[in-house]
């Protein structure tokens, strides 16, 4: 599931359309929801971005490990208007703090450092993207996910020859984002795929919920049960996905300890056969 954070309604429109989202009704921040993505309009500034990010996290059920993308406009000393970029470093001009988004999927656009400033800049001394939200968005979203899934995509709206954003119409803003919507979508879908991978890693093993429903395990026993079922899934995947097999294995268990004992006995009887995938050596990859 994707989470978008944008500052302006005009920035939201192309994404809302592309991902088939609809307004979520009366909320402190405008929110749009769809099957694969939710979006919040934060307003300008890092405090608003941080607050909106936290609000969307809670409004969306508080699930961890989602893909988060901040999309917005920014100024740059050299890049052309309308060009999209991905942040590889975010610095807060006020505090001097820096964060480094971890890019582990293909970036659809060049990567650049981003500087979050309090006021509009017209002199872009170092060749960074100047904007206002990333330093609020990024550390907040990282509280709810991992740095590999949290990113900022900025579209250049201002450069030394054209400070457009301050007098840009909503339509023009919309067009700038729409001009990058394909790349944003590719990036967002790659991140969403990564988030699904993370969810699969963290998923409960087959049989876990059924066992919790039938017996009353202590917290320590739950943790042991989970790992035993994970091991069963690793060593005997076909059987572990078979509800009847699990039912048979645990049928008649006297209590929670007996459940754990039966699983341990079963695991002790399973042969250890390491699978045999082969791959190229890293030495060959350079």
């Amino acid at each position: 599931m994707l989470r978008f954070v944008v500052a302006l309604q005009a920035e939201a429109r192309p994404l809302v359309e592309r991902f088939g989202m609809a307004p979520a009704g009366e909320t402190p921040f405008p929110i749009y929801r769809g099957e694969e993505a939710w979006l919040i309009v934060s307003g300008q500034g890092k405090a608003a971005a941080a607050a909106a990010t936290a609000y969307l996290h809670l409004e969306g059920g508080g699930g961890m490990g989602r893909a988060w993308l901040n999309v917005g406009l920014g100024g740059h000393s050299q890049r052309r208007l309308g060009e999209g970029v991905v942040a590889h470093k975010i610095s807060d001009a006020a505090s001097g703090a820096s964060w480094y988004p971890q890019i582990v999927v293909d970036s659809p656009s060049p990567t650049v450092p981003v500087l979050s400033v309090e006021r509009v800049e017209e002199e872009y001394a170092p060749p960074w993207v100047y904007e206002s939200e990333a330093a609020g968005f990024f550390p907040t979203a990282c509280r709810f996910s991992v740095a590999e899934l949290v990113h900022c995509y900025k579209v250049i709206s201002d450069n030394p020859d054209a400070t457009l954003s301050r007098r840009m119409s909503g339509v023009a803003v919309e067009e700038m984002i729409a001009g990058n919507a394909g790349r944003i979508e590719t990036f967002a879908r790659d991140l969403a795929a990564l988030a699904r991978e993370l969810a699969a890693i963290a998923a409960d093993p087959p049989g876990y919920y059924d066992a919790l429903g039938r017996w009353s395990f202590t917290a320590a026993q739950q943790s042991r049960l989970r790992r035993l079922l994970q091991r069963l899934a690793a060593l005997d995947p076909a059987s572990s996905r078979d509800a009847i097999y699990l039912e048979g294995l645990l049928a008649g268990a006297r209590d929670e300890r007996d459940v754990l004992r039966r699983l341990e006995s079963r695991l002790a009887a399973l042969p250890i056969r390491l699978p045999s995938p082969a791959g190229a050596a890293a030495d060959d990859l350079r």
Partner: protein
Amino acid sequence: MIYVEEDILGHPRALQIQGRFPDAEVVPCSRYGEIFNRRAQHFRLQKRRPSLILARKHRGFVQEAPAGFGIEGARSLVFSHMHNCIYDCRYCFLQGMYRSAHYVVFINYEDFQWAIEEKIRAGRGEPLHFYSGYDCDSLALEPVTRFAASFVPFFARFPQALLELRTKSTQVKSLLDMEPPPNVVVAFSFTPEEVQESVEHLTPSVDRRIRAMERLQERGWRLGLRFDPLIYDEGYREQYRRLYGAVFGAVRTESLHSVSIGPFHLPADFFRTMTRLYPEDVLLASPFEENGGIGYRRDLEEEMVEFCREELLGHIPREIFHSGLSALPSAPGAGMSAPGADSPG
């Protein structure tokens, strides 16, 4: 992407390493800790595309090895010019120790060498053994880092000290280009071919490692063999028998400085982190138990160690077999791994 600490942006070694990757984006940072091992990073996701981080190490260049590690009669010290490894061995403790999969290379080799020289001089002739290859593989990034090319000639000046380069790599060109000093040992880690293919992702094959050893042997290098960690599979007896046959069919015992075997051992918290990262992994689902750390069930471990030792002693003289080169792990200190915990090299 290459992250470089700002104060070494102009360092010749940093520039030389960056020159190997002309298309990479260089991102300056204040300290490597801004990127490496931060909260909210995921080792498994990051391992898909790790970045290089060039940094300066400021302290703790050389550390005492845990008690019991090393060869009897010599003081053992460890040092790491790198954190993390280009390989992806499922048993490796680095997965449990770091949240980041990036490779940190400390480029101030001269500071390491000063610290090593100080230890050697303070030792006043005491035999000192220095081990590289615990927080990293000693040779895997050699074409980039030129670590061995710098440290081997350095150690050649100190015959009373011994350097062990521990590796799974076949990157031995820089070694073949120099005269082998008698006090440097190139120690290759091996598991059987079936295990290598299954759990040592991205590593060179057993056969290629043996061929690299042969080339070093022909040039007169002293070699080590580290059958570490011992990995259980229902066919382990036949697998290890075949492995020993292949290795000792190519490597002469006269070339060997030392041979060791090492049971699989990890600090319990590292192991728990690894099972969270790879819950579906067959190796990590093996019959382990907690006993001052995580290892194979005691009876299984004893059976494997006994079998592998007896088989090995059919190939080598007892004098070069050393069990202490794969000591039990101790709790790691800051910035230092646990030698003897299942390691990259």
